[in-house]
C-alpha cells in the first residue's frame, strides 16, 4: 500500500495550476483534500504520474450567498460546510449532509468540490448537487464553462469534466422558506459510505407541494433523481402519507445493484424507509 512514483507540483495560483494540468492532463490528478485520491493511490488503483496540489491556490474556498444562488468554492472543507451559518432550508440541508460525511478527520481535510469531482454515487455532495440542479464551474487554459448537474455526473467516478479542467466552484439555488429539505442515509457503521441515501427538497405552499425534488444514492451508478417520487409528491397535500407514497413510488422505480452490503430488494426497502426520514415525516418506532 505504497503509491507508485509520481511527480508533485504545488502551484500558487489558479492560472499556474491550469498550466501545470495542461502539460499532461491524462497522466495528472488534482489533489484537493485527498480523502479518496490518496487511498486509491496507496492501493495503486490510481497511478497518476503527476499530482497537482491546489491547496495553496487562493480563492477556492468559502460559501458565498448571492441573490438567487449560493456559490461554494470547490476546495471548501466539509467541516466548513458543516459549520456554515447560511440561513434557510439550504443552509440546514448543507449542515445536515456535511455532518454525515465520513468522520471528523475526513471532514477536516476533505473538500466539497473534491467529493463532487470524484463522483461516487453514494456521496452526500453528489446527491445534493444533483438534487438541486447545481451548476459546476470548471476552468482550464482553454477557458471557463459551467456544467449542469444533470450532465455532470456521467457514471461511477466519471464526470463531464475534461482531464485538463479544474472544478473551481459549485452554485446551488437559494431555497426560500417554503421549502422543507433533508437527507437520510443508511450505512452499517457510522461514517461509512451509505448503502442507500435519500435527500429531498420540497416546496410547500398552503399545504400543497408546489415543487418536489428527490434524489437517491446507492441505487444506480450516479445520483438518481426520482421522477416517480417527485410526480407523486407534486400537487399533493403535504402529509406523512404523501411522503410514504412517494417513497414507495421511488422504490418501485429504481433498479438498484446487489452486493455484499445488500441486495436490490433490500435497497428498495431502504428507499421506502429513508425518504420519509429525510423529510422528517417518519413516525416514531419505524
Amino acid at each position, binding site marked *: 500500500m505504497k503509491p507508485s512514483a509520481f511527480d508533485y507540483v504545488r502551484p500558487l495560483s489558479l492560472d499556474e495550476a491550469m498550466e501545470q494540468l495542461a502539460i499532461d492532463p491524462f497522466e495528472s490528478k488534482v489533489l484537493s483534500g485527498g480523502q479518496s485520491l490518496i487511498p486509491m493511490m496507496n492501493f*495503486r488503483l490510481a497511478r497518476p504520474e503527476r499530482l497537482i496540489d491546489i491547496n495553496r491556490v487562493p480563492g477556492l474556498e468559502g460559501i458565498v450567498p448571492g441573490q438567487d444562488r449560493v456559490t461554494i468554492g470547490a476546495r471548501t472543507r466539509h467541516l466548513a460546510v458543516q459549520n456554515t451559518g447560511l440561513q434557510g432550508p439550504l443552509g440546514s440541508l448543507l449542515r445536515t449532509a456535511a455532518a454525515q460525511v465520513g468522520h471528523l478527520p475526513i471532514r477536516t481535510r476533505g473538500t466539497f468540490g473534491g467529493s463532487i469531482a470524484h463522483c461516487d454515487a453514494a456521496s452526500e455532495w453528489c446527491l445534493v448537487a444533483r438534487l438541486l440542479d447545481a451548476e459546476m464551474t470548471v476552468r482550464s487554459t482553454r477557458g471557463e464553462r459551467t456544467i449542469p448537474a444533470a450532465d455532470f455526473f456521467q457514471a461511477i467516478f466519471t464526470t463531464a469534466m475534461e482531464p485538463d479542467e479544474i472544478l473551481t466552484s459549485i452554485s446551488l439555488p437559494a431555497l426560500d422558506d417554503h421549502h422543507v429539505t433533508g437527507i437520510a442515509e*443508511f450505512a452499517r457503521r457510522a461514517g461509512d459510505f451509505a448503502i442507500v441515501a435519500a435527500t429531498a427538497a420540497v416546496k410547500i405552499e398552503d399545504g400543497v407541494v408546489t415543487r418536489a425534488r428527490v434524489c437517491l444514492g446507492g441505487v444506480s451508478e450516479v445520483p438518481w433523481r426520482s421522477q416517480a417520487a417527485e410526480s407523486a409528491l407534486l400537487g399533493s397535500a403535504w402529509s406523512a402519507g404523501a411522503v410514504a407514497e412517494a417513497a414507495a413510488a421511488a422504490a418501485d422505480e429504481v433498479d438498484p445493484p446487489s452486493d455484499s452490503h445488500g441486495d436490490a430488494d*433490500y435497497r428498495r426497502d431502504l428507499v*421506502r424507509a*429513508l425518504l420519509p426520514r429525510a423529510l422528517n415525516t417518519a413516525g416514531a418506532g419505524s
Partner: protein
Amino acid sequence: MIGSRALRIEDRVLLRGAGRFAADTQRAGELHMRVVRSPVAHGRIVSIDGTEALRLEGVTAVWTYADVADLPAIGFRLTPREELLPYRQPVLARSVVRYVGEPVAVVFAESSYLAEDAAELVDVEIESLPAHLDPDAEPVVWVDAEQASWAAGNGERLPAQDSEASVFTIGYGDVDAAFSSGEGRVFTMDARIGRHTGVPMECRGLVAVYDEAEGQLIVDGAAKVPFWNREAIAAMNGLAPSQVVVRETHVGGGFGPRGELYPEDVLVTVAAMRLRAPIKWIEDRQEHLMATNHSRGQHHRLRALVDEDGYIRALDATFTLDQGAYVRTHGATVASLTASMLPGPYVIDNLRVTAHVRLTHKTPAGTYRSPGRYEGTFARERLIDAIAHGLGLSREQVRRRNLIGPEQMPYERPIQAMGTHLVHDSGDYALLIDKAAERFDFPAIRETVSRRRAAGERVGFGFGYFVEKSGIGPSEGARVVVDSAGAVTVLCGASSVGQGVDTVLAQVVAEVLDVPHDSIRVVRGRTDQFQYGRGAFATRLTVMAGSAALNAAKAVRDKAFRTAAAELAVSVEQLRIRGGVVEVEGAEHGGLDLGQIAGILEPLRASELKEEPGLAADGWFHTDHMTYPYGLHAALVRIDEGTGRLEVERFMVAYDVGRALNPLLVEGQIAGGVAQGLGGAMYEEFLYAADGTPQSTTFMDYLVPTAAEVPPIEMLVTEDAPSPLNPLGVKGAGEGGTTAVAAAIASAVDDALQRPGAIDSVPIKPDTLRRLLQPTTTHDVPTKE
C-alpha cells in the same frame, strides 16, 4: 497492591508515543521485503519471472520457491495431529497456489516503495483451476502424493490426500443408547459462524539481521510466542537456538493471529542470513486481511435428547471447520477446543462431538480470541433457547436445570482440552445468574421490553452462558532482580500483546516486596533475557507468569531476610518488609533497604554469607490442568423496522475470574473482548466470490465495529470461585468478554423478532433482519420468560 485498580505501567511509554513497534526498528543498510502473492485462489504455477524486477535500480534479489526449496514446511506449535502434516504450508508456493494471497515470490529492495514497484514487475503466470470453497461439500482431492509427502516432511511416502484433513470424535457415555431409549424429546440446531478474525491495529512485521560480530541472528518485532518461534527459526536456518535472539517490541494487539510463525517471518530470517543484510518486512492492511490467519468459519449440527423438565440427557454434535488452504501452526486447536468446550457449564450425561477439519481455497485459518468457545457457545446456547421454546420453559429455567452444581466441583468431564484433563476447577454457576439478574435488574429489563414492545417497538432481551478456560501450563518462570539502588526488575518468559501483563507482574512483585508497582521494570518477550517462555495465548499469563513471579518475589524476599538477619544479627522470624525496607519487628529505626541488601550480596560478601551473589531469585510455576472461569452475557437490542438496523442498547457481562489481580485490567479485557464479539456477531465477515477471490480486503468491506457501534459495556466481575490450582486463586480474563456475545445477541434478536430460532447464523446483517421482519404465514410466538 494485588486486587487494586493500579494504573498500567506500560502507558507511560505508550501514551507519549515513545513505544517501539515492529516498524519502528530501523537498521542501516536494511532491505525491505515485499511479498508477491497469488492473484488466484487455485492454480498451477506455469512460470515466475523476476527479470524485469531485478532491472530496477535498488532491487537486490527476487526469490521464488526454487531459492528456498531446502526449507521445510512450518511446523505445528499446538495440537499437532499426525494426519494434518501433509497440509502444511511451504514458505513459498511450490507448484500450486491454494488461496488468493499465497506467497509465490519475494522481492528485496532498498525501500518499501521500490520493493512494491518491483513486486509488480514480477511476472507470474498461473493456470487457474476450479476453486473449492464450500467445506460442507463432499471432500475433493486436495494434494497429490508428492506434495503430501513433502509437506509431511517425515520421510514417509504418502498417497494423495483429500480436503478433509482430519475427522475426530470425542465424548463420553453412550449417546446412541440414550437416543434409542425412546424417552425424552429430541431438539436440533443448525448453527453457523461466519469467517472472521482478529484485526490488531498493528499489522504483522519483522526485522532481522545477522550480527556477524556477535555471531547471532537478531529478530525484532516478534509477538505472542517468541521462544517457540526462536526454536523454529533456528531450526529453519540451521542455527543453534542460542545463536538466535528473538525480541518482542511493543505489540499493537495480538488476539490469536499475530505472533504465530508465518511463511513471511521465515523468509525474513532466511534472507537476513543469506543476503547478509538487515531485512525488514511490514505487512500492509490489504495483505493482512488476505494472508494473516482467518478464523471462526464453522457450521454446527446439534441434536439433543431432553427430558420434559429441560434436562439434557445426551448431546450429539458434528461440525465442519473451514480451515482454508493450509493447516498452520495451530494444528487442530480450534476444532479440538470447539469439541471439548461444547458442553460448557452444563452436566449433559452423554456426549459425542465429531469434528471435520476441511480445506478450502481460502486464507488459512487459526485461532482468534476465545477460539472454539465463541463458535461452540453460539451453537449450544442457540440449542438451549430452542429447547426452552419447545418445552414452554423459560430460557433461564432450562439453563439452571442443566448447570453443574457448586457441590459437584471440581467437576471432571471425561474428555481432554488442549491435552489436559477437563476438570472444572471451581464455580457456582447458578449464583452468577442470581448476581447478574440483581446487578443488571433483569426483571426491570424484561418489563421495559414488554412495555416498549406493546408500544410497537422491536426490542428484545437475551443472554448466553459460557465456561471459558485459561492458564494452560505446563510451566512459566520469572526472575526478580534487585540492584544496588534498590530498583526491582522482573525478567520472565511472558509476552505482551498489549494486555497489561507488565502491570500485573509488577503488582504481584510489589505486593511481596512492598514497593510501588510502577517502580518495577518488567523485561519479557526476549529470548536473550530468560531461558524459557510459552507465550501469550490461551489466557494463560496471569495464572502462569503471575504465579511464577509470586514465587520468585517470595524467594527474593526470603533471601533478603536471610541476608539482613545475618547483617543485623537477628533471626529471620524477627524481620518484616515495609516500603522496600527490611526491618526488625517492633524496632523504630534501622533496617536495611533492598538496595543495601543487594550491595551486601556482592560476590565476595555473598560467598562469606554462603549465598549466591546478587539479590535475585528465580521462581517457577507448573501445572497440568487449566482453570475454568465462567460468565454470562446479556443484551438488550432494538431493531429498526424500516432499515433492519440492529442496535445494541445495553450489553452486560457477569464474569467470575476467581480473583481479580487488577479489576481495571479485567474490565478492559472484557470491554475489548465484547467489541470483538460484536464484530463477529454483527459486522465482520470474509466473503469470497465464486472463483475464490476475497471480497473483504479493505476496511471498507471488512467492517470492524468502532466506538460508535459499541455501547458502554456494563460489567460485574465476581470472585466467588477462586481457583484451587494456583497460589493466587486467579483465572484468566482475556477471552471471557468475547465468548458468548454472538449467543446473547442472537437470543435477544430472536426475542425482538418474537420468532424463536430465527437467528441461526452470524454475523446478523440488517438485510437479513429486514427479511425476517416481513410478515410471514407463521405466527409470532412469544419467548417465555
